[in-house]
């Protein structure tokens, strides 16, 4: 017997969890519970004080905290229950597919919650130094960019004065500007890949505006300093990402920030046995954003890392809507099953399967490419028939791409087919 009950349990009170909850309520679902481990709702947006959020969702340019506040207001206005300071430690399935969430907080200790559906909205984590294999000592002064962002923007403390940034992820670029504003000298941003991991706009407004050099195909090969960082050695890398001897340059600095990728935080999903996509480190999902475990949905950065919170909100709204439909017992006829295959430069897609019976009139499929492409096309085929061919001036791994599948067009090709499984292929073409 569980300590609590809620029809829909949402794990995470960041942008994904908030949008999912608001959307499920809009669908008429009353019994919702959001579980958040921080002391307030909003997730990472609280520390993203820069602007650029909300142009799609609210048609205006907001900062992270302002964007979060819009959604938090919806949650408060709708009186959707949430628990703060609450860490979920396990999700399991009970009899008849009921979901049992085990959580703990300082007030109630360990407790269980029984639900009909769960939305995974735990977000992602930064890749830490330990996963980067940088030689050298382990002195103070090495931070992930997001940790530094928390120190500066939430706690009002400066991690250092002379900074080198490894990795050109968006948080690293944003922090280059933040640290400069706060009086630090940012010497350079080194990026292992021959292209940036972050958005072009952030290179323009966070690096170029402040004459901070971006060193592509460069990496940190040594960290000097026993107690505190005293400097780092940066070398150029060859096409196999191996440092080229003789290219080493020493940078005297007291701080090294790491912005080397984000990893969906899926420990709970793994424990539950959700099937994971090794490319995204997120769950495999169908058109309803439902994972391999029926009634368990995923959205936001726990599913795949997004560039734009607006897209997270859109995706999460869909997950909330579909979870509400699942709870109402409406998951239509399955129709045909379409597997989405990505190849020739397209690394993955979300979703990976489409049940045509549950497909909305238009379905957004999001993906990333594995390299920089100029003046190419994105081609989409259904059972070998071309659905679309979109000319693309520039595609880059740092910028998420999307296509819209139109149900009517899909049905037209599949109508009267006596085969139950079909295939959509997304690829880069000349």
């Amino acid at each position, binding site marked *: 017997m569980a300590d609590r009950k809620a029809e829909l349990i949402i794990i995470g009170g960041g942008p994904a969890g908030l949008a999912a909850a608001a959307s499920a309520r809009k669908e008429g679902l009353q019994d919702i519970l959001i579980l958040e481990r921080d002391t307030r709702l909003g997730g990472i947006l609280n520390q993203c004080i820069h602007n650029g959020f909300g142009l799609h969702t609210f048609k205006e340019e907001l900062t992270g905290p302002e964007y979060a506040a819009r959604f938090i207001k919806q949650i408060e206005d709708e009186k959707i229950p949430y628990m703060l300071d609450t860490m979920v430690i396990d999700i399991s399935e009970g009899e008849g597919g009921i979901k049992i969430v085990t959580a703990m907080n300082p007030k109630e200790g360990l407790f269980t919650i029984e639900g009909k559906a769960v939305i995974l909205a735990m977000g992602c984590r930064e890749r830490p130094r330990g996963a980067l294999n940088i030689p050298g000592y382990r002195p103070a002064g090495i931070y992930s960019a997001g940790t530094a962002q928390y120190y500066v923007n939430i706690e009002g403390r400066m991690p250092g004065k002379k900074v080198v940034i490894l990795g050109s992820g968006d948080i690293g670029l944003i922090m280059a500007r933040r640290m400069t504003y706060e009086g630090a000298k940012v010497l350079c941003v080194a990026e292992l890949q021959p292209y940036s991991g972050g958005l072009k706009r952030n290179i323009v407004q966070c690096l170029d505006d402040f004459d901070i050099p971006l060193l592509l195909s460069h990496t940190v090969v040594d960290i000097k300093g026993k107690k505190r960082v005293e400097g780092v050695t940066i070398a150029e890398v060859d096409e196999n990402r191996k440092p080229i001897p003789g290219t080493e340059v020493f940078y005297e600095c007291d701080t090294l920030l790491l912005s080397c990728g984000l990893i969906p935080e899926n420990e709970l999903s793994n424990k539950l046995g959700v099937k994971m996509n090794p490319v995204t480190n997120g769950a495999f999902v169908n058109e309803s954003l439902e994972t391999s475990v029926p009634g368990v949905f995923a959205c936001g950065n726990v599913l795949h890392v997004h560039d734009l919170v607006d897209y997270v909100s859109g995706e999460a709204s869909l997950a909330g809507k579909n979870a509400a439909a699942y709870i109402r017992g409406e998951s239509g006829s399955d129709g045909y099953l379409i597997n989405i295959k990505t190849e020739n430069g397209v690394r993955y897609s979300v979703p990976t399967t489409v049940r045509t019976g549950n497909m909305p009139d238009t379905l957004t499929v999001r993906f990333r490419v594995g390299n920089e492409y100029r003046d190419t096309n994105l081609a989409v085929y259904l059972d070998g028939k071309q659905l679309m061919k979109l000319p693309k001036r*520039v595609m880059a791994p740092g910028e998420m791409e999307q296509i819209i599948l139109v149900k009517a067009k899909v049905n037209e090709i599949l109508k009267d087919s006596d085969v139950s499984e079909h295939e959509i292929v997304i690829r880069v073409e000349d």
Partner: protein
Amino acid sequence: METRELTCIRCPIGCHITVTLENGEVQSVTGNSCPRGEEYASNEVTHPMRTVTSLVRLKNGKRPVVSVKTQSDVPREKMMDVVKALKEIELTAPVKIGDIAAENVAGTGVNVIVTSNDD
């Protein structure tokens, strides 16, 4: 005729915009997908503008600082002046989104407003 290639920074889409100039006058803007892009590109090649987002100190708040932004864009060369001016400001909690933290910051004619709630 001069051609300038820009990446729009008005939103994270980052459109690739081409501007043609004749004697420093903008002749055409192409590649943008919204009117904001056209405005950005025209400004960028003549007088670049930026929104500044930063922090000011906060007394009696849950947190020691609160986030702020310029209510509209300021000239790019004024960014560091704005940031410097903000270091002199201390607000007292409670503060809420939209509160004015500073008027006419660094002589730009632009107000600075609070972007987080701390009550």
